């Protein structure tokens, strides 16, 4: 079997085509968002929001509302609760996040256990990449495109918010509103990624690509290109691997991203552990040769 067949064979199944489109889209949107999350230090917040949307999604399923609506409501509830617990008790922020998101996640699990459903709601937890239906695909497409468009159009404001919220305030912008916008987009993006890798692994898609890109460049504008490209390539590679190795698809996608991060961490010419040493050795050699 040559490379051509390896690439084409899975595409003969409709469900694989849908899986690849959904994943690539989710990967791109998550990766773009992750650039800000890793720079602001909101990784834990990403983890929290992506878990806390679960009860919202289940409730939306029960009443027949769009998943995104339920997710947004619960993302908002989670962020508010975290703020309340942090500000009105001696509990620190990381503990507040831990308490709120695990409790809401547990609430979601309880709701799933009492909800009779045709589609297995457990798929929300671990993702159901290979079972993406056409309506699912459309929903992911619409939400993904909306989130992506807002992120790209407001990228400069969001970067200013991440870098220097005080200056944002000083020139008459509202850091509060920008922060809320980013959180809203986080909730929206979580819903997009739920379909593919599930609640538990969404956070990987929301952190790893941004972190990988951050190790590769000193320019935010380049991060916004590197992160989605790397993420999309990893995700598609992950699906192919899961197809041929017969492994869990969502998990394989995340694993591929993790492996690529590890490689960049070690070999990045700017920041990598080994990469920087190699570059130094090369420079020394060049100097030695010149002398």
């Amino acid at each position: 079997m040559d490379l051509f067949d390896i690439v084409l064979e899975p595409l003969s199944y409709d469900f694989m085509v849908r899986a690849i489109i959904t994943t690539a889209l989710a990967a791109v949107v998550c990766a773009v968002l992750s650039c800000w999350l890793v720079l602001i230090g909101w990784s834990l917040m990403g983890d929290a929001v992506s878990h806390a949307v679960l009860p919202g999604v289940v409730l939306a399923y029960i009443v027949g509302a769009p998943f995104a609506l339920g997710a947004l409501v619960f993302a908002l509830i989670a962020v508010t609760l975290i703020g309340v617990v942090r500000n009105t008790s001696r509990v620190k922020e990381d503990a507040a996040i831990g308490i709120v998101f695990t409790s809401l996640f547990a609430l979601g699990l309880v709701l799933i256990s009492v909800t009779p459903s045709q589609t297995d709601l457990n798929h929300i937890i671990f993702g159901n990449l290979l079972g993406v239906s056409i309506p699912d695909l459309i929903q992911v497409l619409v939400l993904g495109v909306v989130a992506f468009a807002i992120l790209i159009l407001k990228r400069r404001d969001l970067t200013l918010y991440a870098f220097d919220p005080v200056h944002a305030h000083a020139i008459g912008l509202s850091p509060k509103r920008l922060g809320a916008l980013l959180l809203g987009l986080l909730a929206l993006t979580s819903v997009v990624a739920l379909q593919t890798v599930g609640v538990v692994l969404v956070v990987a898609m929301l952190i790893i690509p941004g972190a990988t890109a951050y190790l590769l460049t000193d320019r935010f504008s380049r991060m916004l290109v590197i992160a989605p490209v790397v993420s999309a390539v990893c995700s598609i590679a992950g699906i192919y691997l899961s197809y041929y190795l017969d492994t869990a698809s969502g998990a394989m996608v995340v694993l591929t991203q993790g492996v690529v991060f590890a490689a960049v961490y070690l070999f990045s010419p700017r920041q990598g552990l080994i990469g920087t040493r190699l570059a130094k050795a090369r420079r020394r050699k060049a100097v030695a040769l010149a002398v």
Partner: protein
Amino acid sequence: MSTPAILVENVTVHYGEVLALDAASLSLDTARICGLIGMNGSGKSTLFKVIMGMIKPDAGRVLIHGQSPAKARKEGGIGYVPQSEDVDWQFPLSVRDVVMMGRYGHQGFTRRPSKADRAAVDLALDRVELSEFANRQIGQLSGGQKKRAFVARGIAQGATMMLLDEPFAGVDKRSEATITRLLRELASDGCTILISTHDLHALPQLCDEAVLLMRKVLMHGPPEVVLQPEHLAMAFGLDVLNRDLPEQETANQRRLSKQQDWS
């Protein structure tokens, strides 16, 4: 009498139970450079935040050129140079990117830079002598250059007032002189400058006036008067007499203690 550039009237701020500012009042005229002196916790940062409108005072009011801080912010008049430790120097932005952020208030929905914006940024970079470093990542500048990059942001913004938080921390003597000259130039162009600082050495060359803050404004006058040891002692406690003072002040103080010996 003309409208003061900054007017702070009887401003009181609490953080929970803690009193941060206690009926502080301050009036600063246009194109003056004012040094804000006080210990940690004396309310310097709080006063900055009140002037920028980040904190609403519990009592009192703030006017910027006779307007509310919110209006002044919208007009892009307030430039801010943050304390070094408040900045993420690893952030993947170039010097030019940071200076361009000064233009955001003048730009449209997506902040796409126009020709005029680029020109303003180039001009500002030139003014602070950082043109050749424009494409460096901000963390790869020296302490003084970092400060100048943020001053350039204020210049590009067209700020008529600049607030600088500890601009001389981690800055060597030569850069300190460069920054001082730059700020003096800006002031002579009509920019009002308020500087919070621990660095009492730099004040007489830099400032037209100085303010001694200890939750309230203890004193406001020419730097050479405010910096007299007996005045500083009000804000810092007595141990300040033995350190952090300009040569001349230490001499004053020696004279003072001699006089006390004689009496």
